[in-house]
């Protein structure tokens, strides 16, 4: 493995530049879309603390998306606002998991847990990235992510061993969400160059780490992963559930009316 460090985004040679741009779109779009989904609980969560938690996580994820979009901007892409508000659904590179509607509370907390576990695995790997700006950002984000994962894990355990109804709802949520969560690790043509340059591990490796991180928590919660769970792919190449279009219609509403509006 070539372990030469890239001190800045400008140091990337042309081939890797394209790979890093693709990676950053995947990271940023996942964060933006799940951030928006979390914000849909603001004012609607079952208890006040849950409301504050999802609103806080929404704010965190939006902030993370902005930081990744800023890196994209440094690599010559449009400015962060244009990237978030000015792109069509097929230009987004997010996984199906984050696109799905918020569903019931069980679905939202379970989705969030699966997502945060994946993000933690990714960020932990990025701390060692040869791409120094990514390693620095990951070091920072990991400290924040820790609280999301603690929150998600405690809800999964609480509802998994709660009442018959809560357990049933959690299992139903897992049956839908698990396949989509596997889609977070959709392989791309950029896996090899990124891994060989030491910028990011292969998606298959991240998936393996994620599975061993979530399995014990799901087992403790009494939830079962279906043997038949097959990854839902397509998000990383711009094929998304219809739900993404509806989400973006809402997220981009003001920008579409007046791109120069200040609010």
């Amino acid at each position, binding site marked *: 493995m070539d372990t030469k460090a890239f001190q800045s985004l400008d140091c990337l040679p042309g081939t890797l530049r394209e790979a890093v741009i693709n990676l950053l779109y995947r990271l940023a779009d996942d964060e933006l879309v799940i951030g928006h989904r979390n914000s849909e609980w603001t004012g609607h969560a079952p208890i006040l*603390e849950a409301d*504050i938690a999802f609103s806080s996580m929404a704010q965190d994820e*939006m902030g993370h998306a*902005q930081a990744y979009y800023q890196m994209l901007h440094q690599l010559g892409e449009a400015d962060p606002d244009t990237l978030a508000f000015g792109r069509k659904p097929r230009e987004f590179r997010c996984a199906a998991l984050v696109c799905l509607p918020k569903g019931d509370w069980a679905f939202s907390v379970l989705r969030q847990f699966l997502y945060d576990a994946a993000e933690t695995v990714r960020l932990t790997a990025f701390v060692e990235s040869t791409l120094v700006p990514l390693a620095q*950002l990951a*070091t*920072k*984000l990991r400290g*924040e992510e820790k609280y999301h994962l603690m929150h998600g894990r405690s809800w999964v355990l609480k509802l998994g061993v709660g009442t018959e109804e809560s357990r049933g709802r959690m299992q139903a949520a897992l049956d839908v969400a698990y396949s989509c969560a596997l889609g977070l690790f959709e392989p791309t043509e950029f896996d090899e160059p990124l891994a060989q340059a030491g910028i990011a591990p292969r998606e298959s490796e991240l998936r393996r780490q994620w599975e061993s991180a979530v399995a014990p928590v799901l087992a403790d919660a009494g939830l079962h992963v279906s043997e038949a769970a097959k990854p839902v792919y397509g998000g990383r190449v711009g094929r998304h559930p219809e739900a993404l279009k509806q989400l973006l219609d809402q997220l981009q509403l003001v920008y579409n009316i007046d791109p120069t509006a200040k609010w």
Partner: protein
Amino acid sequence: MVSETQKRRNRTATRIVDCRLSIVDCRLDAGAAGGSSVANRKSPILRALESVTDPEIPVLSIVDMGMVAHVRIEREKIAVDITPTFVGCPAVGLIRESVAAALAAVGETDVTVNIVFDPPWTSDRITPAGREKLREFGVAPPGPRCGAGQLTEPTHVPCPFCGSLVTELESLFGPTLCRSIHYCHRCLQSFEHFKPV
């Protein structure tokens, strides 16, 4: 006779002084072409930065918070690097404007304020003086670093009002991104804790 508490206070006071000196000595770098005029500008610049507060915790300056990563002075130009507490912190834009305004007020008008993630801000950067001000404000200061990757829940945080350790975590998320909510079983009230990150 000096009590134990008083001795502890004195030791804290010494650390505060040391810490401030280190800010002046290490974090204010004068450019090569600076000379004595740069040296004369150092303390007004530092005082100006100390007048900028975090709008979400108005008793703490950005210097107390450890958010001033670096100040570079080169002739009339000043570059200030601010390392934000949380990446999604909505106060960053305001802090950036306030830094420029505070420096302008002491005659420094050629100012660039950069938002950086290197060094990453962690709660370890809050100065001893900052921790004391947090406690007086009623927010329990962060404990020693938990390690960003570890799932150690902030339980048994000392109550900022009575010091009791018989407290429990009520909510990991609070009124701002940087605070969690706890309950003290001794003085029977909720309090906020600045999260260790």
